[in-house]
């Protein structure tokens, strides 16, 4: 198992390197950062300033050298490279935003998984019942909605509620208030009030896919021979369902959740944009818009790291939970 883990990690390094090379090249095609930053300024920016900026961002060096220097500085000195905004430290920004995103993703995933397991199992055990059709229908509706449509809908609902009751229960923008009121209770209410809408919208989308998945995996288990054997032995139906059925049907779910968490840490882009949630996704969008090359690279490394770790955790979990699977 340890040898397997080490081998997997070693394989991931070249993957991340190749991906970073491609991304580095792609950022060239999104546009000229200096142009973007200084275009249309009045009075025009002095040529000396532009030249300084170009030198600071290493824009005039050959691309291979730029990439090499970036990699060298990162590995040897932990330096993430210069940001478009001279005052921004990419490393500090990333670690701050990572926490903000994790706060959102964890709660949303937990909510989605619990709901998905409950409805998925109910659907499978009562296949083709009214209940199954209702859950299926609801799941498919959420599966078919554009993310920003759900988010916007929730936002409208919340604004309507806030205006209707005169109480500011839901906050529709940002992760925290600009000027939070002091006191422990206010802090909790502030965090919670900001968390609730993005969490619900992220949870609903995730739930939709997961519940379908749980239903399929439970169905597969219910039709298996060992379930028939367990029933034939005369075990209590509930015990058969929970101990023999559900426990097995949860195995694929754990791996899919691990992958899901990893995937949205870098990419709750749209949810974060609608609610102006200053996490990783919004950082990516902002950096791409500003052609902030080194920021995009930093984002790629963090999100790539989580995808790789997520994949690994999923595979290892699978091996631990399901004794039929062993890695050589």
């Amino acid at each position: 198992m340890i040898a397997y883990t080490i081998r997997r990690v070693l394989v991931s390094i070249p993957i991340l390197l190749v991906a970073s090379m491609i991304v580095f090249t792609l950022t060239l095609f999104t546009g000229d950062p200096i142009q973007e930053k200084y275009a249309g300024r009045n009075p025009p920016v002095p040529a000396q300033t532009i030249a300084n900026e170009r030198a600071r961002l290493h824009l005039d060096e050959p691309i291979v050298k730029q990439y090499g220097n970036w990699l060298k500085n990162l590995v040897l000195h932990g330096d993430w490279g210069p940001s478009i905004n001279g005052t921004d430290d990419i490393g500090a920004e990333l670690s701050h935003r990572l926490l903000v995103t994790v706060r959102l993703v964890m709660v949303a995933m937990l909510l989605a998984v619990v709901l998905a397991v409950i409805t998925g199992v109910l659907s499978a055990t009562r296949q083709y019942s009214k209940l199954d059709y209702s859950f299926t229908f609801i799941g498919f509706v959420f599966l078919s909605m554009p993310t920003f449509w759900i988010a916007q809908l929730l936002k409208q609902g919340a604004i309507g509620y806030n205006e209707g009751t005169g109480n500011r229960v839901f906050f529709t923008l940002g992760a925290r208030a600009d000027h939070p009121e002091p006191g422990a209770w206010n802090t909790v209410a502030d965090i919670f009030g900001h968390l609730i809408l993005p969490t619900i919208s992220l949870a609903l989308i995730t739930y939709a896919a997961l519940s379908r998945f749980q239903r399929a995996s439970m169905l597969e288990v219910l039709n298996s021979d060992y379930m028939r054997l367990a029933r034939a032995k005369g075990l209590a139906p509930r015990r058969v369902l929970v101990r023999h059925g559900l426990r097995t049907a949860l195995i694929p779910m754990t791996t899919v959740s691990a992958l899901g968490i990893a995937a949205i840490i870098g990419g709750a882009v749209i949810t974060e944009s609608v609610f102006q949630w200053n996490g990783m996704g919004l950082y990516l969008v902002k950096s791409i818009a500003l052609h902030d090359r080194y920021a995009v690279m930093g984002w790629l490394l963090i999100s790539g790291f989580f995808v790789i770790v997520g994949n690994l955790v999923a595979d290892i979990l699978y091996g631990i939970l399901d004794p039929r699977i062993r890695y050589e």
Partner: protein
Amino acid sequence: MSDIQSSSATQVATPAGSGERVEREFTVKERRQWQIVLRRFLRHRLAVTSLIIFGFLVVLAFIGPYLWIHQYTDLDSGSSIRFSGSNPMGTDSLGHDLFAQVLRGMQQSLKVAFLVTLLSTGIGAPYGAIAGYFGGRIDAIMMRICDVLLTLPLFLVAGALVTGRGGSVLTVALVLGLLGWVVDARVVRGVVLSLREQEFIEAARALGAGTVRIVFRHLLPNATGAIIVQITLNIAAAILAEAGLSFLGLGVQAPDTSLGLLVNQARLAVDTRPWLFYWPGVMIILIALTINFVGDGLRDAFDPRQTRQRR
């Protein structure tokens, strides 16, 4: 609803090896694989209804603009009408007829979806089949290439390719297709991995069939079920992905339009002119929902294990 029917269908598919079979032989009609699948699919009422609605929407999107009284570029209606006889979905602040715009948007969104599906299935299915068939080192290298593609952020690729090229239907489809085929490749590879261990592949190889023949004549046809289901999922995913790109300004660009672009343009006016936001949104959901249901019905039809039978 279908317990009795489905049990008889399975007996047709795999003749039961018991004595019962002798009595049944006279009543059971021979059916080909696709006939069995078709029968199972037709029993899934929701899926059949969805297929009809989806088909209707496609026809509407491609023929509707020729029949409707307004063009999507026309500015001849009054501005910000909620509903009227000649503007059933209302108009925007400039006087565009929303129904004409939605028709055009549907057409462009569907074009994107079909192109993406063509690309991702066209590349992904053979790629996955080849990787799964060879296994070993070739498989490992091919899958690592997929891993690299999976880490690339869609929005950056879109940003690099769409910016400066005006975001035509073709560019948007290209971006989504070039990143999307990885999923298809993985699905098909999974199916092929289990297929290639079976005897009929061994038999084909023993008869001297080459790799190309085995992949395209034996492996891919047997993975058809998974591929067809994947196609329906691709269509739905592409419609939603196009909407997501539009949201960030990286999708189809004005003056042309798409469903995603329409919803996004209406997002800020949702308080004053909500119909501009809801109509295109409902059409996106309707298209994605119906095609998803079709896919669900097909999955059930191709995979009898997903149907639970009373034993």
